[in-house]
């Protein structure tokens, strides 16, 4: 299955620091999507990166994709307490999610 697995499972940082989360998957993909979920609520779409793209930016977010290593990373720069959430990567049309990274940003 095209399963994404995030690493680390949990990350705790201070406000202002950068947070990096990694995602690995098993099979060939057309694209990979990153989502954020606050306290068991709905998922917010962050970024979609296609298989022919290596890097994509959106505000304080930077996503990279290495198809040779079947991995992606999400970097949040200058983190804020409001960034505290779980972050998931997902692949495929019928999205297959990893277990997510729980990010805590301490004020």
């Amino acid at each position, binding site marked *: 299955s095209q399963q994404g697995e995030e690493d680390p499972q949990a990350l705790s940082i201070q406000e202002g620091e950068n947070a990096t989360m990694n995602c690995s998957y098993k099979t060939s993909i*057309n*694209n990979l*999507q990153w*989502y954020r979920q606050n306290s*068991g*609520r*709905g*998922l*917010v*779409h962050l970024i*979609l990166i296609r298989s022919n793209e290596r890097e994509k930016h959106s505000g304080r977010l930077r996503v990279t994709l290495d198809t040779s290593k079947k991995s992606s990373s999400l970097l949040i720069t200058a983190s804020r307490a409001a960034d505290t959430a779980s972050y*998931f990567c*997902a692949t495929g*049309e*019928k*999205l*297959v*999610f*990893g*277990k*997510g990274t729980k990010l805590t940003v301490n004020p």
Partner: protein
Amino acid sequence: SAVISQKPSRDICQRGTSLTIQCQVDSQVTMMFWYRQQPGQSLTLIATANQGSEATYESGFVIDKFPISRPNLTFSTLTVSNMSPEDSSIYLCSAMGLGGTSTDTQYFGPGTRLTVL
């Protein structure tokens, strides 16, 4: 981006009863999906809601337990039937193909938090 709403946002139900969750998208979309998120877990796809025909279920999910309707391009329902405490989860609908395009971005509703006693 598409705006997706779900009703109810949460419910507490008795064992053996059924609950129907509604999902409304503010514009026509190509595809709609239903996911389940059990406590402390990630999301698992239940089925693809097909407009005007039977839903396509993933392994481990059956129509008798999770009947799904999708009468048009903007609306779908998921029923959780004959509930047990193990059905306590967040149920989320999602949509892609905004405006009938082939965009791959999948947007999610706010979820329905179900507790079965």
